[in-house]
């Protein structure tokens, strides 16, 4: 039988160098240019300080190999079961501390994408809420892509593969498509489908780089076989900023974190009359019922909506109100972590609809 693991380590010299952020990015760009099958997978992530310290100290998965200029190189190990055999897989993983935004890092791997998709990404997903990836709204995703295309003059940028989720009645239906669309056309198409892109793969242009494919996921995961420098500048840095801003915006919303235990609600503003028919209340409540690891209690459903939601990951809880046609108001209760607020809003955006997240000003 052909042995698939561990991955072939043909970039050892690169790992043994002391990198700065600049040499790391340029080095990866150069490696991608000279190794056709090499891929970089990376994502910005919030990591709680004590958890980050634990990773640096080492555990059964992480072993710190070197550090320089906020760049940490680890041996990362995990187990997989293959044909009833448990195998230990080990590979290299960079974690780059963001110099501007506290607690925000970029996790980066080179090479075997299975190492990333079966080991690294699941590890960080499971580490929630100590580590937390982001979610990129559709509007933001479109803006990132337009910015990337227009500022680099990639006129022929074409969407070549999409993983789409469509809201069909009470159900969310996934589908994979190979549309060969322009950016604008792709976003029009998914809007017609009442859905969103979970993942979107594109080529920058037939002339400039015929073989380079870049994929961007809603959770901020980027995979590519080229253009590392541009990816870092046009995707990783702005997404890191979003992660940081979300942390700041969603933090200290719990009543226990505020003087006099005051409430600090936020709202999702659709900017138009979303809740016109009573059926819309039902649709929204049905969408909320699908939230994993949570309790949803309906206190009131008609004519206004009042829900109580518990998050079973960390014990956060929220009241949710629909008291006007344009907005959903979220009132974090005594305990409400920013991770949980993010998860809640992410769920609403994925399973109901997207709107603008705003502070909801309270006047008593």
């Amino acid at each position, binding site marked *: 039988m052909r042995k698939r693991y561990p991955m072939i380590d043909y970039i050892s010299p690169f790992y043994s160098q002391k990198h700065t952020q600049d040499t790391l990015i340029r080095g990866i760009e150069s490696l991608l240019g000279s190794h056709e099958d090499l891929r970089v997978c990376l994502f910005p992530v919030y990591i709680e300080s004590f958890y980050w310290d634990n990773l640096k100290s080492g555990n059964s998965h992480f072993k710190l190999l070197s550090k320089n200029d906020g760049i940490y190189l680890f041996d990362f190990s995990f187990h997989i079961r293959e044909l009833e055999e448990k195998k230990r897989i080990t590979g290299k993983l960079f974690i780059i501390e963001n110099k501007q935004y506290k607690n925000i890092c970029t996790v980066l791997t080179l090479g075997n994408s299975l190492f990333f998709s079966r080991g690294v990404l699941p590890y960080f997903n499971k580490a929630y809420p100590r580590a937390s990836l982001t979610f990129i709204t559709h509007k933001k995703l479109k803006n990132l892509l337009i910015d990337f295309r227009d500022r680099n003059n990639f006129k022929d940028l074409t969407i070549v593969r999409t993983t789409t989720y469509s809201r069909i009645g009470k159900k969310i239906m996934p589908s994979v498509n190979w549309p060969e669309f322009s950016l604008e056309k792709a976003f029009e198409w998914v809007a017609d489908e009442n859905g969103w892109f979970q993942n979107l793969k594109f080529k920058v242009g037939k002339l400039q780089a015929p073989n380079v494919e870049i994929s961007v996921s809603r959770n901020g995961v980027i995979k590519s076989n080229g253009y590392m420098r541009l990816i870092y500048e046009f995707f990783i840095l702005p997404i890191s900023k979003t992660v940081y801003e979300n942390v700041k915006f969603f933090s200290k919303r719990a009543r226990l974190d505020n003087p006099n235990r005051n409430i600090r*609600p936020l709202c999702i503003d659709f900017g138009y009359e979303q809740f016109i028919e009573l059926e819309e209340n039902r649709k929204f409540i049905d969408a909320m019922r699908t939230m994993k690891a949570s309790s949803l*209690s*309906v206190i009131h459903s008609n004519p*206004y909506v009042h829900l*109580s939601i*518990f998050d079973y990951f960390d*014990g956060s809880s929220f009241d949710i109100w629909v*008291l006007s046609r344009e907005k959903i*108001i979220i*009132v974090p209760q005594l305990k409400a972590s920013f991770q949980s607020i993010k998860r809640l809003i992410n769920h609403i955006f994925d399973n109901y609809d997207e709107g603008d997240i705003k502070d909801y000003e309270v006047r008593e």
Partner: protein
Amino acid sequence: MSNKSFRERINDYTDTIFAIIGFINLFRFDDDTRRMREDVKVFQGRIMRTSSSNKISPNNEVTPDFCIQGSNNKGIVGEVKKSFPENRDFWMDDFKQLISYDDDLLNWLTDTGKIDDHEIVLLPEQSRSRAVKRYFEERKDGEIVFTKNFVIVEFNRNNQADAYFFFRKEYGSFKYFNLIDHRLDEGIQVPILKLMPIYEKIKLYDSKPPLPYLLLLIWENVIMLHASNDERFGSLRKNSKLPVDITIDEIVQELHENYSFKKLNANNMSHQPKIPLKSWIKESVNALMSFKLAEWKNESAGKCVVYFKKFKDTLETFKDLCDEHKLDMETDEKQMELFDKKKE
């Protein structure tokens, strides 16, 4: 009792809180500054002392749903009645309660505990307000006599998406609060959007909530809060239980601090019962014991262990469990009994 009945009762309970907050805020809100007036004091469930000449309950204590103390040393004492019993024989009890406020009540927030005068207001829900008014008018020179000014203000919650509470005068006029009185002639709409932030901190008033709703509040704000400090919380499986050691006093204190009228009661807790009452919480813990979700560790000291469990729909689960164990059944007659006890 069906789940629907619990749902209706929870609606009644929350509507009553909205109505109390909405009505008293009409007197607190200053249209010029767009802020709440500091010189108008409001109280919910304040224990007021009656005089020896009280026609219903001399030298005793009464607890109106709300008292408003104006800067003019005049006040309003009122009751909100979301639902009147089907059986009109019981209506006289409601009026007797109001007549018990027809007295120079003590315990206002003044040096002497007295104010110059107060008016009495009844807030029935709109669907019954005409009938209640008729009932009163038929008896006002006989069985029901007020020496103080008496007003009926109907209220309702509209059934539109932009939900609001509506208050309109149905009988009489406020003689000491002219500005509001004129506005109440035509009726005043108060959007729930404006009331919600206050409600968020006041989910309990001095009447016992339906048991499933109280259990939901306890579960979310006390038990889950404690359980989530346990490192096993996140990985707790669906049918597993996490023990939480707690006392009745702690549950009372945490709900009182976070969800009672404490802050609105002019930050003056003298003559204010501590809501939720200890007896409600004890009843709730006993219910959890029936559901095998709690055990006494030391009943006389109020110490118990509650087994936290993750439910998919916590309120619905507690409604079903209350149904199954026939807890918190309520009839018109029982409602009146409880009501009489509360007012004794």
